[in-house]
């Protein structure tokens, strides 16, 4: 044991590494000196520097959770066709940068021959940003990689082409914490029943005061159940959000039937045109239906179709809905408008229409 201890060395707390050592030389040379960019075809960007230097970027979608064979395939393509430099985007696409235009087509061919998908630039449907799901998370209501694989199979043409009015960012999240973040369209878990509590385990596993404090609506209180200290939930107050589950796993929120999916639209992080916006609920009650989740994909496609037909150039989904109004959105997408769409959380009043601005 002492020997083993001696073998442990203190970590080198180097923190975030310097990226310049991994940057393409043309990017290092022209750092901060770029003049403009163009979008010659889907999946390709051309940036031109004040020096006259150019860099061509080829973007490709992958399965995100890479096995070492796939990663080595991606690096070998980088070695053979792209000077050995890559980067990854926020949405886990890989980007290759080359200075020689002649390398672009062979690079695209090599990527496509290896099964990767070139696209995801400009007004395309971008790769779905997603979380861990059943594969690795401790609290997931659904899978992530599987939902995304199934959905991208159906949306691949929209990824490879630029036929949308503006870019569309999709996200998925496997619980209501929503690690997937905001999106033009977000497919998120929505629990619909209160947690089922295993009272035998609560006192051993959970720090009860912090579980009580975690509840957004103060629906949890300490209680003696079957003579044991436990917790109880006021099910009339409970909003089924699952916030109690991570700190207290015996408060099981996930359920094969009652854990469902909801779809939210109009989240936009950019400051372009309007200020950034949060996504809004449009559809719920969607079954969590592995392995291909067809019901969720169908609704996403319905929304995309209406957006593609109805939006003007450069309108993101939130811009489009701002212009046409929510009643028209529900009309053109064919989605039902229910009492659950009317917000009752703090600040809800700001979402009510206090005017006679009504479209007929």
């Amino acid at each position: 044991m002492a020997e083993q201890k001696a073998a442990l060395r203190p970590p080198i707390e180097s923190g975030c590494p310097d990226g310049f050592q991994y940057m393409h030389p043309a990017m290092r040379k022209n750092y901060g000196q770029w003049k403009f960019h163009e979008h010659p075809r889907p999946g390709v960007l051309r940036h031109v520097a004040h020096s006259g230097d150019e860099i061509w970027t080829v973007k490709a979608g992958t399965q995100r959770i890479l096995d070492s064979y796939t990663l080595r395939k991606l690096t070998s393509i980088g070695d053979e066709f792209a000077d050995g430099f890559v980067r990854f985007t926020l949405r886990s696409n890989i980007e290759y940068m080359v200075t020689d235009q002649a390398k672009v087509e062979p690079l695209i061919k090599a990527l496509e021959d290896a099964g990767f998908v070139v696209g995801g630039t400009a007004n395309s449907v971008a790769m779905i940003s997603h979380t861990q799901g059943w594969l690795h998370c401790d609290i997931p209501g659904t899978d992530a990689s599987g939902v995304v694989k199934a959905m991208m199979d159906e949306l691949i043409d929209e990824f490879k082409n630029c036929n949308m009015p503006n870019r569309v960012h999709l996200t998925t999240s496997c619980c209501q914490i929503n690690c997937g973040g905001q999106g033009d369209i977000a497919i998120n878990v929505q629990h619909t029943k209160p947690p089922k509590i295993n009272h035998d385990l609560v006192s051993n596993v959970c720090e009860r005061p912090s579980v009580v404090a975690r509840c957004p609506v103060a629906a949890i209180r300490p209680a003696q159940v079957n003579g044991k200290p436990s917790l109880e939930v006021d099910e009339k107050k409970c909003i089924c959000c699952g916030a109690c589950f991570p700190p207290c796993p015996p408060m099981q929120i996930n359920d094969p039937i009652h854990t469902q999916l909801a779809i939210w639209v109009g989240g936009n992080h950019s400051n372009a045109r309007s200020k950034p916006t949060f996504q809004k609920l449009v559809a719920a009650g969607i079954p969590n239906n592995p392995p291909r989740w067809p019901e969720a994909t169908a609704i996403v496609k319905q929304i995309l179709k209406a957006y593609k037909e109805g939006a003007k150039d450069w309108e993101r989904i939130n811009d489009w809905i701002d212009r046409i109004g929510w009643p028209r959105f529900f009309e053109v997408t064919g989605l039902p408008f229910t009492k659950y769409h009317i917000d009752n959380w703090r600040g809800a009043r700001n979402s009510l229409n206090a005017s006679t601005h009504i479209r007929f």
Partner: protein
Amino acid sequence: MDKSKIHPTPMLDVLEDGPWPSFISGFKRMRDEHPEQRINEMANSLLGQLEHSYETRKGYWKGGTVSVFGYGGGIIPRFSEVGHAFPESKEFHTLRVQPPPGNYYTTDMLNQLCDSWEKHGSGMITFHGQTGNIMFIGTTTKGTQHFFDEINDYGWDLGGAGPCVRTAMACVGAARCEQSCTNEHAVMRHLVNTFTDDVHRPALPYKFKFKVSGCPNDCMNSIERSDFAVIGTWRDDMKIDQDEVKAFVELKGRDYVIDNVTTRCPTDCMTLNDDNTLTVDNKNCVRCMHCLNVMTKALSPGDDKGVTILIGGKRTLKIGDLMGTVVVPFMKLDTAEDYEKIVDLASETIDFFAENALEHERTGEMIERIGLVNFLEGVGVDVDPNMVNSPRQCSYVRMDGWDEEAEAWFQRKAEEKAAAAG
């Protein structure tokens, strides 16, 4: 590996169909073709557990406490609840490793990381997780230490997990984007590397995230997703190349430019003139980026660049979504002194957060609870009308300090004027 031990995966097999690259095919390759038996068995076991999840619609991982020697965080521990049935992946921890700003890699470095990971882990990696880490998914407690020691020797460090300063993110930035208004790379490293201790040893009320975007397009979603968002901007006039404007109008037509550029300006500050040149009322431009996005050759940011800082963004848990709000409308970031200033503000913010937030409360929620003014006074930042959409609309407030506050405002304005006159 003994073929008879392969877990059947009828539901996952369905995810091998279709044109998008399949993670299941990748895992199966690790199971069937990798030369190392340990990895074959781990992949087989993982696939078995995932199939079980698909069949029962439930997850089977639980957390725990695993870290490397000297650190308190950086590992996501995962122990299987069905380890008896799938023993080879019953410990399947993830290491979160900090990437460089902008996520640049040489293929040599990726291969080296891959070599190390195959030696000590499952061989499964994600670039990157939602916080921004490289996720090395799947190893035992022992493997965690060995893998970290090995990659730590060649320049890689763990990121944050738990209530701590988290791994930061920066956009592609000045390395390849003409819209970049700051040195994202330097900003991110200055910030996050000042707080390595707070990254590695979780001791805050809850997580604290930095994100850096080079321009208001905010490709890092920093306003929505970080406690401390740094966004590049400029305060002089945008640059207009009128020849390129004319060329653009020639190419697209006047109607297109009016419909897609001038009328989309949120403050109505652009005019397309009869001679196909553009006039911009720069005093009213809010740097939204729309016109620059459309006319990438003709329009570009000005020269007097800096950053806007917004504090308090976060997602739902616990009080609902919050955007970050403006705390510093403009800050120059050129000199070492400027960088000291932004690092000081971050330190003040984190200290104030550590002392005043409730357990499991994010910075934005704390500000919501105590009010922005209390936060500003706590970190030593003066109020500014850029912080609000509008002034207060309810009269229920005690205002007997008005005269002093008004005086302070005029004094500040006079000082600013004197400083500008130089």
